[in-house]
């Protein structure tokens, strides 16, 4: 477009915006014109009344002048209106077609707008923090394991002092603590923050104030905790609460809208913080490694760091600078922990959403394919209709309508349908987004902001316009490819399509099936991953298992003896509870290299100094019973063998199948000696692998040791297997725990099934969406295939009638009709399989234990599609066999 014509369109647009004023001005202008003429006549000696009359006559068609002036601006506006009115009439005349098109479009637009709504809310929406685009995540990165690591506190202090690319830097740590207020204990998610954190996040107190950098004894509550725990009573300001037995004063409550999901190192999901305290001051040297003080207040040596870039400072420059500082520290204070680390400086938002970025992109791609399928399907329907209207169109052409005019007419019909479809789609998207946010609140971070906003609206409209242009072209193409003169001559309303049109329709079917195949395979692979993830050993019944966590805190549990006494009392009391069939605890786990008699290291997954690394899990014997894990080899140690009296004299250990497979590689495990740094013993039995934490993580080689032999016993996970519904047992479990010691914090209880489900909630989300897309895609593609065959039957009614009259068998007729169309279907499936095979690795992020080119999935989907599409085409063609030959012959 030249600059000139662009200006012309701009002037036209400006005209449209103030059309009524413009027309009023034009009227005034013409009236002025007339009065000038009248004055002129009067000057020539004509009487005033006559002059006025004459001037009116002379000016003639004022209306025409105005009409033509308007047309100069808008093109013929009348024809626009005419087109629209005509379109509305055509839509009313065939409401079925209109309904199908509108609905298809609404579903496609609705799904696209919804997914884009999620995409925008999660990945594109800026963080609700001041100058959020300058906030970055700073972390040493271990390329070998592709993980970010924590920053040591002293390192952070040096970074902050030396780096010049940053306006500020703040460190934070996150821990779960026992929170005791007025005799009530609860487990809270605590965030420890360094100075500058409040400034950086723009946090404001709703009540009281925020603590300063040196206020080591102050706690600030979130508004949620303030309401839940203290009923929003402002009297709590200044009162003392206990965190892990350490007294702190409540100095303030954060504003209600302050909500920031700070990333963890591995970006896994973590519940929102409920309280904030200042990071304790640690007078440490770089590289020093203090330990948490058991039972005391948490001391964070390892922190996470966020920074705010100076205006104009680039991320790359900041990274280079920080890498230099990091290398200098590594040189001055060498430790293996810093070896081979590279500094990572990434936008904070990117870090926060990194686990869901790829899945969301995949979903957006998938839903775009769905849109293409829907577009092709609508094109079908409109094409079929425009073919049946050929004679009508031929009449209009012969009455003088130009081809351009006809195409415009057809496009305006498409446009009207698109407006209806897009509108309905947006209503659908509105509901869908509400449902998604309610169904998967924790599946995707920042999902709560998913609403129909201007960006989503714009996206929906652009998508609608593009697809309208695409499907609106179809009837126009059909029109250009048909011979209208012969259409006019024919008597019947339907005419057979030319080979060109038939090929075009066929390739639409091919296109639909190609994309549907892709979506089905993607959904199939994801579903198979899901299935493998949730595979469980027999006897493992997470639905029947209640889990919760008790943290031992306070001066009373500072030493080992009372800790053990507490746990034993807990197990005894719960065992007696009606409805409970087994009770156990696990006391947390730790990874460590081990020495195993005859064990091989090269087969184990991770190896340290030639020794395989395995997970030690201190448990009570009841733990495996409560989990329902079957013994594969060997025997359960008797209860007596693991009781507190016998514990010193026995050295029985249990290992899992994975241990036997990877560390011992099929050698007899029973009786073999295992030597770890803290625990040693003899393998008494092998139990089945199971997942009790994270469904999409492979089970590691594990060693189960009696919890009494664990180093620390502070936070224990309680596992209660119930006979009835675990939910009904939960309150009495809570009661029992409170009776033993009301000052100990108990975390929310949930069934193991819920815990496991939550561990893959973002995968569930992706799977549900993909499954939905695949189902809709399949439906649309099959409808398309059915439509093409049915239409072809409709067009060949005469031929079929004659064949039947001449004695053709119904099955022959069906085969005849199907043969040509089925080729397009087969081509679609084949193209889909080949294309998906090429692109499959792109969805690797959604898969677990399944190769992206998994043969079984490809084969199953292909076969299922082949059967479904053949049946569909067949049933469409079966109508052909029902043609009454007499009717056809009479019609000849």
């Amino acid at each position, binding site marked *: 477009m030249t600059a000139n014509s662009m200006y012309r369109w701009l002037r036209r647009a400006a005209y449209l915006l103030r059309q009524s004023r413009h027309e009023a001005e034009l009227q005034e202008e013409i009236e002025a*014109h007339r009065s000038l003429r009248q004055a002129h006549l009067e000057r020539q000696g004509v009487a005033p009344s006559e002059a006025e009359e004459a001037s009116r006559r002379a000016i003639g068609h004022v209306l025409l*002048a105005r009409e033509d002036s308007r047309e100069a601006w808008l093109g013929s506006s009348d024809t626009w209106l005419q087109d629209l009115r005509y379109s509305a009439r055509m839509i009313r005349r065939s409401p079925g077609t209109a309904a199908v098109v509108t609905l298809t479009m609404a579903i496609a637009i609705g799904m696209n707008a919804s997914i884009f709504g999620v995409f925008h809310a999660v990945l594109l929406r800026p963080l609700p923090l001041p100058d959020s685009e300058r906030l970055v995540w700073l972390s040493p990165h271990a390329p070998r394991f592709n993980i970010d690591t924590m920053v040591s506190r002293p390192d952070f202090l040096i970074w902050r002092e030396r780096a010049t690319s940053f306006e500020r830097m703040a460190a934070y740590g996150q821990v779960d603590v026992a929170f005791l207020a007025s005799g009530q204990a609860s487990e809270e998610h605590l965030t420890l923050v360094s100075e500058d954190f409040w400034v950086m996040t723009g946090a404001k107190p709703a009540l009281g104030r925020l603590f300063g950098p040196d206020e080591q004894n102050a706690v600030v509550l979130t508004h949620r905790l303030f309401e839940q725990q203290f009923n929003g009573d402002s009297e709590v300001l200044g009162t003392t609460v206990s965190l892990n037995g350490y007294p702190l004063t409540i100095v303030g409550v954060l504003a209600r809208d302050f909500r920031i999901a700070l990333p963890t190192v591995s970006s896994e999901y973590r519940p929102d913080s409920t309280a904030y305290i200042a990071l304790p001051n640690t007078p440490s040297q770089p590289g020093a490694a203090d330990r948490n003080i058991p039972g005391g207040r948490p001391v964070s040596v390892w922190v996470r760091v966020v920074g705010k870039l100076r205006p104009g400072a680039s991320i790359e420059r900041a990274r280079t600078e920080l890498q230099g500082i990091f290398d200098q520290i590594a040189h001055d204070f060498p430790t293996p922990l810093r070896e081979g680390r590279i500094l990572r400086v990434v936008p904070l938002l990117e870090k926060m959403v990194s686990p869901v970025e790829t899945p969301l992109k995949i979903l957006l791609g998938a839903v775009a394919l769905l849109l293409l399928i829907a577009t092709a399907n609508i094109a079908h329907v409109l094409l079929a209709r425009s073919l049946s209207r050929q004679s009508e169109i031929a009449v209009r052409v012969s009455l003088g309508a130009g081809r351009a005019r006809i195409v415009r007419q057809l496009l305006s019909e498409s446009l009207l349908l698109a407006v209806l479809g897009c509108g309905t789609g947006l209503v659908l998207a509105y509901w869908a987004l509400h449902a998604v946010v309610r169904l998967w609140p924790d599946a995707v971070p920042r999902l709560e902001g998913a609403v129909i906003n201007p960006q989503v609206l714009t996206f929906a409209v652009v998508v609608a316009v593009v697809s309208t242009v695409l499907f609106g072209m179809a009837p126009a193409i059909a029109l250009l490819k048909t011979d209208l003169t012969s259409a006019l001559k024919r008597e019947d309303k339907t005419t057979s399509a030319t080979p060109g049109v038939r090929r075009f329709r066929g390739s639409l079917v091919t296109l639909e099936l190609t994309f549907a195949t892709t979506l089905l395979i993607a959904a199939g692979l994801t579903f198979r991953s899901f299935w493998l993830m949730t595979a469980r050993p027999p006897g493992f019944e997470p639905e029947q298992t209640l889990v919760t966590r008790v943290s031992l805190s306070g001066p009373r549990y500072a030493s080992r003896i009372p800790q053990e006494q507490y746990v034993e009392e807990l197990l005894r009391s719960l065992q007696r509870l009606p409805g409970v069939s087994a009770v156990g605890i696990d006391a947390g786990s730790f990874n460590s290299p081990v020495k195993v008699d005859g064990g091989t290291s090269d087969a184990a997954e991770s190896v340290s100094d030639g020794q395989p690394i395995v997970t030690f899990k201190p448990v009570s014997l009841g733990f495996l019973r409560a989990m329902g894990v079957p013994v594969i080899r060997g025997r359960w140690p008797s209860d007596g063998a693991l009781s507190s009296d016998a514990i010193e004299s026995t050295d029985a250990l249990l290992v899992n199948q994975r241990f036997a497979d990877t560390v011992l590689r099929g050698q007899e495990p029973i009786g073999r000696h295992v030597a770890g740094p803290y625990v040693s013993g003899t393998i008494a039995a092998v139990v089945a692998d199971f997942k009790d934490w994270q469904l999409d993580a492979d089970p590691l080689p594990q060693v189960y040791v009696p919890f009494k032999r664990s180093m620390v016993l502070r936070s224990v996970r309680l596992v209660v297997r119930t006979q009835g519904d675990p939910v009904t047992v939960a309150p009495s479990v809570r009661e029992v725990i409170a009776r033993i010691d009301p000052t100990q914090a108990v975390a929310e209880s949930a069934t193991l099934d819920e815990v496991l489900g939550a561990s893959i909630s973002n995968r569930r989300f992706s799977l549900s969406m993909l499954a939905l897309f695949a189902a809709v895609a399949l439906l649309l593609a099959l409808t398309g295939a059915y439509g093409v065959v049915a239409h072809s039957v409709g067009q060949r009614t005469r031929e079929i009638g004659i064949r039947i009259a001449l004695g053709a068998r119904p099955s022959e007729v069906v085969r005849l009709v199907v043969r040509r169309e089925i080729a397009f279907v087969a081509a679609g499936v084949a193209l889909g399989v080949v294309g998906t095979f090429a692109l499959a690795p792109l969805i690797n992020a959604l898969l677990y234990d399944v190769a992206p080119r998994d043969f079984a999935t490809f084969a199953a989907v292909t076969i299922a599609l082949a059967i479904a599409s053949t049946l569909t085409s067949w049933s469409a063609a079966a109508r052909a066999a029902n043609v009454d030959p007499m009717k056809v012959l009479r019609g000849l």
Partner: protein
Amino acid sequence: MGLANTPSDLLPGTLEMLILRTLESGPKHGYAIVEHLRVTSQHALEIGESALYPALQRLLINGWTKAAWGTSENNRRARYYTLTSAGRKQLAKERAEFERMVRAIHDVLEAR
């Protein structure tokens, strides 16, 4: 037959060219343009309003003229049209084209 007063008998675009030419001598309102065309053509061209105003709109769309409200000689509000520099260029172009055409027609008519 001669040149009639209805613009449809003019060659397409000629009316616009004549209006541009008329405006070359300074801003004018619609009536003044009609009068100017009538007088300078010695009453051969009587432009009706139904032709004039659409033509004026076309000139505005193309950016060849600008319009502004002013006061007419009988003290009424009237819209005055002014030639823009783009309009001046357009006029020169159309004039050259028109003269070429007239010469061509002349040549044909005079050919033996």
